[in-house]
């Protein structure tokens, strides 16, 4: 977060979210319309579909200092493009296995289905991710690895 505006040096988790344009992005909009407050630690990247989310993006997010990453899209059956989320789901499943073997902390990688109607779910999940990440602390392992590069 911007150094000037930071009131204390307390750890503020940095979350990057890749969300689909048709469900989760609208769900986040709905959270706004309903004024459902949540921590400001999340930065949303709008993509057309979770099917577009290439996994190097997640690695990239850690490289630039993210403490947790969220990928979220439409519930199964609701995909604007009929099946993008199904494709994504299969890849996520495999990618998690790989990350786990490499020793990347799976508690820092979240996947969710949030529909355009689920503003409250968005709020709840983001709050939970921020709280949990705050509890875990900065992703020192990855940060160190980047710093040493």
């Amino acid at each position, binding site marked *: *977060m*911007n150094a000037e*505006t*930071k*009131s204390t040096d307390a750890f503020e988790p*940095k979350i*990057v979210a890749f969300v689909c344009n048709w469900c989760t*992005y*609208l769900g*986040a*909009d*709905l*959270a*706004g*319309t309903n*004024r*459902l*407050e*949540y*921590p*400001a630690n999340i*930065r*949303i*990247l*709008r*993509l*057309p*579909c979770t*099917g*577009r*989310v*290439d*996994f190097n*993006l997640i690695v*990239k*997010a850690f490289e*630039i*200092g*993210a403490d947790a990453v969220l990928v979220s899209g439409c519930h199964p*059956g609701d*995909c*604007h*493009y*009929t*099946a*993008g989320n199904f*494709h*994504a789901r299969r*890849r996520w499943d495999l990618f998690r296995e790989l990350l786990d073997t490499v020793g990347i902390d799976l508690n820092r990688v979240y996947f969710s289905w949030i529909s355009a109607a689920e503003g409250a779910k968005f*709020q709840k999940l983001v709050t939970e991710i921020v709280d949990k990440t705050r509890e875990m602390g900065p992703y020192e392992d990855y940060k160190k690895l980047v710093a040493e590069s």
Partner: protein
Amino acid sequence: MAKIGVFTCWCGENIARNVDVDKVSEAIAKLPGVGCSMNYKYMCSEPGQSLIATKIRELGLTGVVVASCSPHMHLKTFRKTCELAGINPYLIEMANIREQCSWVHSDKEVATAKAIELIGMAVEKVRRNHALQPIRVPVTKRALVIGAGVAGIQAALDVASGGVEVVLVEREPSVGGKMAGLSETFPTLDCSQCILTPRMVEVGQHPNIKLMTYSEVEKVDGYVGNFKVTIRQKARYVDIAKCTGCGSCWNACPKKNKIPNSFDYNLGNRGAIYIPFPQAVPARPTIDPDNCMRLQSMKNGKELCGICAKKCQTNAINFHDEEKFVEVEVGAIIVATGYQLYSIKKEQENPRIKGYAEYGYGKYPDVVDSLQFERIISASGPTGGEPKRPSDGKTPKSVVFIQCVGSRDNAKGITYCSKICCMYTAKHTMLFKHKVHDGTASVFYMDIRSGGKMYDEFVRRAIEQDGAKYYRGRVSKIEQVMVDGERKYRCYGADTLKGTPVVVDADMVVLAGAIMPSSGVTQLAQKLSVGYNEYGFLSESHPKLRPVETNAAGVFVCGACQGPKDIPETVAQASAAAGKALIMLSQPELTREPEIATIDEKLCAACGACVKACPYQAISIEEIRDRKGNFIKKTSRVNPGLCMGCGTCVAVCPSKSADLIGFTDDQVYAQIESLADVF
């Protein structure tokens, strides 16, 4: 050299209350490539837009970021602004600092910092935007309507009357669908066939409608405005151009009245050459190859029977008929494949759905479903409208009607309400009571759902005037018992209003089975790239605002294939689909969003990962040849007419030869990296 203009909106107090807009503008002005950064009370207002336009012209901006509300709200507005100001409308990005910032974070300092970052991301993205031109595709002014029940008939007539050619495909030998078999319709009790038959005749005669009965959609190629559809015409063994429909063939068939007629749900019989019902359109017969003695004997090299051909004056019968494939080119497709009733039997095809062994349907002959009852009570039905029960032809004196059989029953695997059963069951009780004055009609229901013009009055009439006995409760079991030598069906039910069990001995039981999409609809949906839910009901683009469009451009839906609905709703939706199709077909050409996938053909290894992953079959493997026609290499190539821009291909492409315009890797990585400095 980039010169980006950033315009931060106060949205009145909506943003400015929680975001220090001056501080934002100041911080953004320092970002590389930003040529101007300012804020204003209402960017979407007329003066706000002209402020942007003026700056574009004055400063020669190469890109614009508007930091205000959600792009779903005003991206179109600001694109237009840019276009009017003379720069390409795709050179603008929005930063959502209202829905996703000021409205959800109350700490002004924190929200301001976040707003700066969100705008920073947008700036990095827009620096990498390119001018894009909408994709233009030509339109074939012809529509395909799949299914010729009341929905398909209505849609076809409306499109045809709008002056556009229609190909109407129906898999049964006649048009008419389920409605042609109904007795009378709620809430007016007018005769279903009387109102439908004139429409059926009209589709048969309309100069703009090409009717293809006994035919099915085999294959769909192409894309919006330019579909190529292959239709399989099944062998009918009767040349309907030669046939006059005189009837001498079907009257002479030795199998006449010996084969169960599926139009009567096997309660009545027909011959091996038959018309399914007297008002059929086309009024031309079909030979059922499984039951025709000649066609069966031909398999063994013999030529038995053939009486129908001998009787035919016009030589219309052709025992050597074969199925044909016809290709039609259309610009729009309307799906109207309707419904079928849930099979209540113990055995079910779909392992997810369970049968009602406790009701004995399929085991007890006088336990029928509601469509069978329609035929039993219909004047044109197998009993001539006299209510007779199937087992022994006796007039039932006591009939039990059970609603929600399958519907709203999680244990059987169907959770939804079938919507029309409350109404037609009330109708059934009335029709029964009108014919059997001393009879008892008992209804077991869970809730009465009779929203609709004159609908509740109709249900009340069944209870108050015609004396149908309504019990609020489900039936647990039906047993066949003998009472004083009479076959009865003992229904163990409940009256939850009284709080007691209720046992009714019935002569006949009518089960209001759940409405399911027609068989084969999911396969059709896959051919059309239309989504469907777990039950196979087709998905509309938006449940409220785009109820007849689908996410497959150029494909529209109407009627019960999209969800359970009654005749008035079906007809209204059919007209709506026809209207939408006509609007589309009235354009000289179609424009489509240019934010679609693209392939770097030089680097593509043509591994085909994208081809298989594309939900729209929009990518194919093509050959690259030099001017002389020598083969150079293979590559994937995107069909811009078909691509919807989901980007699944980008994610699966190992070499990243695939990219998504508008959301390129270049843009996305830049957005992420813009956060590196602040994180």
